[in-house]
């Protein structure tokens, strides 16, 4: 695998974010926030009855893009923010671009700008990732 600055991480797309998966994740996380599983609550707080995807799940899509590109054990760091929510029914695409490559204690690390975009163009996750490249 030859990687250079400017290389794009191949896009990873989820065609439809589903409330069923959010409920599974809410149970595993023991997350009490009803915005993730209660449509009536979501209606009351102005989200038109659409439940809100958990932020770690949004981050999970970015992780999937990274691991598909650089390998299942490659992730070293992720630092991200969440400028916009993802709601059930959204289609999302994760991607990234290599910004720097450096060596550290015999390992080759790629620092990447990463993101998750909704289909309406809104950026839902943005940040940096560091992955170790195969030797």
């Amino acid at each position, binding site marked *: 695998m030859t990687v250079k600055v400017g290389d794009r991480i191949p896009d990873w797309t989820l065609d439809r974010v589903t409330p069923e*998966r959010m409920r599974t994740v809410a149970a*595993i*996380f023991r997350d009490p*926030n*009803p915005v993730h599983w209660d449509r009536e609550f979501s209606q009351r707080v102005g989200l038109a009855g659409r439940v809100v995807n958990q932020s770690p*799940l949004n981050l999970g899509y970015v*992780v999937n893009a990274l*691991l598909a590109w650089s390998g299942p054990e490659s992730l*070293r760091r992720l630092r991200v923010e969440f400028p916009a929510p993802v709601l059930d029914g959204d289609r999302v695409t994760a991607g990234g671009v290599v910004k720097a490559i450096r060596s550290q204690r015999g390992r080759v690390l790629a620092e990447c700008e990463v993101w998750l975009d909704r289909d309406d163009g809104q950026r839902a996750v943005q940040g940096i990732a560091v992955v170790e490249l195969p030797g």
Partner: protein
Amino acid sequence: MVVSEGEMRALIGQAFPGGTYRIEPWENFLLTEATGADRLPEGLAHPIHLFHVPIAGVGVGIADLFALAQAPSDASVTIDYYDWEFFEPLRESLRYAMRGGVRDHERTPHADGTIVDSLTYCIEVLAESDRLVARATFRWHFWRFAE
């Protein structure tokens, strides 16, 4: 509900009880499936576990963190950032130890009277012999809207 800045700043340095956590294979299966990915090979746990494993493993829950910050409601909490460091991949069926606590607090008053308390937490995930496997640093906002 008025929460004084002093009460919030008193949380800085507070350590969580600590404890252990084992990622069960069924949990890894369900959580990985929820991300839309195929299961990772050789017992690797999906990195998304670094959200809830440190919290549960350190002996608290998300609801406890809400209560600690005196969150006005579950829906009053938003996330600022996550900073996840992996020194080794997480694996299912291994028991990890956790230690951590509240690292920082910042209060931001808004012109309309809303106050945002932002708490930064840091939790380390350790394997046998105290080997550092991962570190989760994250900051949550607690919104206190003017009445």
